[in-house]
Structures are given as C-alpha cells and as structure tokens.
C-alpha cells in the first residue's frame, strides 16, 4: 500500500515526462522543470497534451504508480498498468459475488446507506456551522430529515431497482439543499445551484463538483486496481462496457465527505470566484486553467486532512480512504470479513 499520497498532476500542455534514474522528470519545451522520486508517488495524472516515455511507464507499472491520461478538461481516456496487476483469483470471486443477486443487493444497499448517511452528516455539520443563519439552518435540517427517512426505507429495500430509486430521491433532496451550504450571500448569481447537470455542467457549482468527482474517481479506480480488483465490475452500478462500475460504487460513499464538502468550502472561502468560469456558446460552463489548478491544489490538501477510520479505528488521512475501502472490499471478497463495511462519517 502506498502511504505516500502525492499525486503528480500535470496540466501544462506540451509537457513530457521521462524516467531519470529512480525519478520522474517533468520537461517543458525540452527543459527539465521538476524532478520527483518515483517511490514518493502514488499516481500521475496527465491532463491533455502530456507525453510520457515508455521507460517511465514501465517503471511506474512496476512500482504500482498509476498513470492516467485525461483530456484537458478532465475526461478519462486511459491508464497504464503493469503485467502483474489484477489478480485472476480475486477477480473470479469478485465476478461470482457480483453475479449473485442477493449478495449484490446486500452490498449495494450498504453502499447507498452510507452514501445517504454521509450526505446527511454533511448537511447537519453545515447546519451546526451555520448557527445564526436561521433560514439556512432550517433548510439544511429539513433536507437532513428527509435523508433520515431514506435511510429507514433503504434498510427495508428488497430490490436493486428500489435501492437505486431511493438513492435518486435522496440525491434530489440533498442537492435541493445545496445552496444552503453556501455561506456568502453571493453578489451575483454565479454560485447558485439549480439542479445537478453533468454532461455538460451548466453552472459553476456543477462544473466544480464534476471536476472533483473526476479526481475522486481516478483515485477510486487506481485503488481498485492496486488491490487487484476489476474496476469495471460493480455491485450497485450496472455493468456497461468501459464503465468503471466498481470504482463508481466505491466513490458513492466518499462523494459527500471528500468532494462536496471541498466544493462548498472552496466557494465559501472564496478560493474560487465568478471569473474563474467561462460560459461556452452552448450554455456549458467550463473552469479556467487557473481555477482548475487551484482546485487541484485544494484537493491535494484535502487529502492530507486527518481522521480516524470509523471501522478500522486507526488514524489515517482523507487521501487514504479510497485505498482503505478498496482493501476492505478485497478483504471481504477474499473471505477475511463477513461483509463489506462502506465508509461512514461520524459528522
């Protein structure tokens, strides 16, 4: 397991990464600009036109450093992994368990339960922090109460469809209260959330959370691969060619706690601002390069926030969560645990 949580994000177009001894060298216009020891790295994420030498790819594959290639705007393209990655015995069991309807239902329910419970904890934590702003507190608490009801219903749900339905409803209530998470009365309407839009994001908040989810998904995906699981065969998310269903499953329990909290605190702390977003002709919203970089830095910092893992009862940091959860998943699949315990945040 990687205890080093440094991910190298390369956003400068035209950069080239090469192996220099036991380090990665970042070259821009042929000139070395940065050099990092390979064993200090957890992953490398290349945005857009970034090249990578075969020697570096080989060394990374060897040492379990994930390299991913994303478009400049953060859409996933490909990753490099080594021959030893992926373990056929673990994967066989994973497929068997995922194929068994009652097992899949059981896992999916717990994943959604933790997603909803964590969303609820995020709302309630914000309500406590918003003391004095009576309207916001009331709105946050009302939404949290709806989510409590969802938790109760989920506990009795008997089909995957009903679980997915309840998840959808809970998400609507949760995002319905998203504006109440924002503390600074915005001068303009820049940071007003109307509804979740992904493809493409139609407002800055959606652009921001979509980008954070992309980063989190990358981490969840490499965590699955690092422990030998197939990131494309999930329990809650249905299989579809090319869809990283297991990584998406793993991400559900972490979205609110890791990404959403960061999104609204970036806005509240004014670390992102209205001019950091561009409106395209088709109505889609895009982040400027500067905003994207600021978000990457903030995400890296978020990963260093300490916490005690509720199940393992061990001190860790936010960035380790995808790995720890993937490990718990593989430990359940291997038979060390009687069930997979998703992450629950004790707000």
């Amino acid at each position, binding site marked *: *397991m*990687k*205890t080093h949580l440094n991910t190298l994000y390369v956003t400068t177009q035209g950069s080239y990464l090469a192996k220099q001894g*036991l380090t990665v060298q970042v070259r821009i216009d042929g000139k070395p600009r940065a050099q990092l020891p390979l*064993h200090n790295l957890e992953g490398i994420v290349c945005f857009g036109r970034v090249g990578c030498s075969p020697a570096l790819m080989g060394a990374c594959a060897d*040492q*379990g450093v994930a390299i991913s290639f994303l478009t400049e705007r953060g859409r996933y393209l490909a990753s490099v992994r080594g021959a*030893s*990655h*992926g*373990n056929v*015995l*673990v994967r066989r069991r994973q497929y068997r368990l995922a194929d068994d309807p009652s097992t899949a239902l059981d896992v999916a329910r*717990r994943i959604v*339960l*933790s997603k909803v*419970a964590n969303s*609820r*904890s995020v709302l*309630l934590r914000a*309500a*406590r922090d918003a003391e004095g702003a009576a309207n916001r507190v009331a709105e946050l*608490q009302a939404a*949290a*109460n709806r989510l*409590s009801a969802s*938790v109760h219903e989920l506990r009795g749900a008997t089909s995957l469809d009903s679980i997915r339905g309840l998840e959808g409803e809970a998400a609507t209530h949760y995002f319905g209260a998203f504006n109440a998470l924002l503390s600074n009365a915005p001068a303009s309407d820049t940071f007003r959330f109307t509804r979740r839009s992904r493809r493409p994001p139609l407002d800055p908040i959606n652009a921001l959370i979509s980008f954070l989810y992309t980063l989190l998904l990358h981490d969840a995906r490499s965590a699955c691969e*690092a*422990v*030998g699981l197939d990131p494309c065969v999930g329990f809650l998310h249905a299989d579809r060619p090319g869809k990283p269903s297991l990584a998406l499953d793993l991400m559900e329990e972490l979205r609110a706690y890791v990404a959403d909290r960061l999104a609204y605190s970036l806005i509240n702390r004014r670390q992102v601002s209205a001019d950091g977003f561009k409106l395209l002709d088709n109505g889609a919203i895009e982040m400027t390069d500067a905003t994207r970089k600021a978000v990457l830095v903030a995400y890296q910092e978020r990963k260093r926030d300490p916490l005690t893992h*509720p*199940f*393992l009862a061990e001190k860790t940091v936010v960035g380790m969560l995808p790995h720890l959860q993937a*490990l*718990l998943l*593989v*430990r*359940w699949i*291997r*038979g*060390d*645990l*009687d*069930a*997979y*315990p*998703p992450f*629950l*945040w*004790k*707000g």
Partner: protein
Amino acid sequence: MPYSETDLLPISALQHLLYCERQCALIHVERQWAENRETAQGNILHKKAHGGKSTTRPEGRSLRALPLRSLALGLFGVADVVQCRPGEPPVPVEYKRGRPKKNDCDRVQLCAQALCLEEMTGQPVPLGELFYGKTRRRVAVETSPGLRRVTAEAAARLHELIRDGRTPTAEPGPKCERCSLRELCLPHLGRRGSARSAFDRLLDSVVAAEEENSR
C-alpha cells in the same frame, strides 16, 4: 516428482513464506506488493550486484545475475553472483541489505540457489555465501543435510500454498511490526468480529447521534 517449467515459482518467495505464510500469499497469490523505502533500497543493492560485468580473473570467474532453476524443487531465480574457482565447486553469493538475521530465511534462499546450481551443473555445491550490506560481512553457509531438508520442505509448502490460492488468515505477532505488507494485510481485521454488525451499529450511532444534534 519433478515439476514442469511452467510450474516454477520464484526462489525469493521462500523468504516470504518463512517470514509469514499470509505475507507470502498476499504477494504471490494476491500479487500485492508494498514498495517501501527498504525494499526500494534492496532493489538498488540488487541492481548494483546484477549491474556489474561478469569478470574473469586468474583466481576464477565471477558470474553475475546468473539465471537458475530446479525442476526437483520447482523453483527459479537469479543468483546475484556465482563464483567459480578452478578446481573448486561453484559458490553462490547472495547480497542482503541489513544484517544477519536470526531465522533461516536467508540461508534457505541461498541453499535453494545452491540446489539449483547442483541440478544444472551436475556438481555438488557444498557452500554458499551471504553478503550483508549493513555489516559489510560475508558469511559462509554450508548446505548441510538439515538445511537442504528445510529448504525442500519450504519449497513443497510454497507450491501447496500457491496451488491452494487462498490467503491464510493472519496470526498477528511481533513479526507484523516489521512487516512491509502490514497496511495491506490489516492483520487485526479477523479479530474485529462481524463487519456486518459493526456497520449496522455504526450507522445507528451516526443517525441517532445526529438526530439528537438536530433537536
């Protein structure tokens, strides 16, 4: 019963096996590997040993990075160095970071190399050498009948473990403190009882605690 070439397992797995069977399964069955500073340094040391050229001097030849295998034991590997002096049996030399250990790991690994050499050359290999980086000392190791037996048993057990394909549950002990796979292994997981009921309890407490807060 001799093994076939496709069944061969790495000699290096023997040291994992002797350290902890679960560790061995995590690395060689589950194919998980924790790269830490120590293993990285170990790799550098090996690179150095392997990187040098094989030399021929009047006192004999030093063969570096020599591939080895034994069908009898079902093992393959690479000897850091094999020293061949005229008129003497070949001597495998294995480089180790750190200092001599109390247990048999290093000697067994070396003995496995010696047995491979015997099988490949048809000559007896009565001696091997361990070179320790910390103490910069060479320790001669005799491939005694006892050590050969322990080595053959370890090889057989290794094949059994890999064939079985299951990871044994952890038996946490002092060895876990120094284990590079600790964070992957989570040795105390098995003792934590039911994860299912732990999750239910946790969920209850999260929901209940916050209902209180929201009052």
